[in-house]
């Protein structure tokens, strides 16, 4: 009698064990290893330094000519020690001030930059920077030596 009870108990226990939901798991250690490996790769090869620049759109070869009012055009010849405008040498602040004043007078003004072939590239970037700071949206770039565009 006692043996029968024991068997019943064992069977019940087994049944209870069977009814338990299955434990499902996966080995995530390998994923962690891979993730850490990739993490180290990205830390070593990446850089947080943002490369920045001045965006410039070139005119298309097929683009036509645009007629502009003379008051809208501001011509400048960047030189090593400043900006030559109408034969007057301006410094950075003066050039920026002049652009802002002209921008107030004539909306949608165009800055025409005449770059000499021997002028340093830094001067072009500086001129474009002043134009941007002064709110000039339209810029035309000309090679002063060639006479034509760019």
């Amino acid at each position, binding site marked *: 009698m006692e043996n029968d009870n024991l068997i019943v108990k064992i069977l019940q226990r087994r049944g209870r064990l069977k009814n338990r939901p299955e434990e499902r798991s996966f080995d995530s*250690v390998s994923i962690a290893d891979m993730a850490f490996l990739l993490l180290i790769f990205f830390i070593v090869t990446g850089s947080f330094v943002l*490369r920045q620049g*001045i965006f410039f759109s*070139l005119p298309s070869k097929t683009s036509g000519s645009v007629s502009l009012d003379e008051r809208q055009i501001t011509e400048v010849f960047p030189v090593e020690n400043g900006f030559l405008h109408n034969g007057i040498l301006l410094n950075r602040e003066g050039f920026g001030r002049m652009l802002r004043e002209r921008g107030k007078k004539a909306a949608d003004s165009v800055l025409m930059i005449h*770059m000499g072939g021997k*002028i340093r*590239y830094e001067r072009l970037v*500086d001129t474009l*920077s002043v134009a941007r700071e002064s709110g000039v949206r339209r810029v035309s770039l000309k090679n002063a030596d060639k006479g034509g565009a760019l």
Partner: protein
Amino acid sequence: MRKGSFLSKLRPITLGSAMADMALLLLVFFMASTTTEPPRGVEVVLPKGTTQGAEQDSLYMTISRSGDIYFDGNLVELEGLHDNLAMRRGEKDRPVAITADRDLDYAYISRVLGILQEQDFLNVVFMSEPRESIRPPR
């Protein structure tokens, strides 16, 4: 430890899944926030300018102080640049990031811009270092 005590019932566990979660989280962060150095070919001193924003997904062109042109890290002649751009006509909407030395003569830039225009690569980025903001005098 006494048999049947509370401590003996505790099972040692590994925190593998939590570690994987953390690693993946950091991985995604680094992948999203870092950029890889573009192929330059030569070191140049960038001019300072009022930058407009970060360039992304560009074709890289470096022009050294002596006028040597590196396209995607490879030294090319002007004719070679012409051919290289012609072969990549399908990517003409991508901006071309020009990383040129600040002391370079504009004549070199002019030639390169002419070729870019000829090959219909019209979006150009003049790479520069951000200029420190100058406070107006009081």
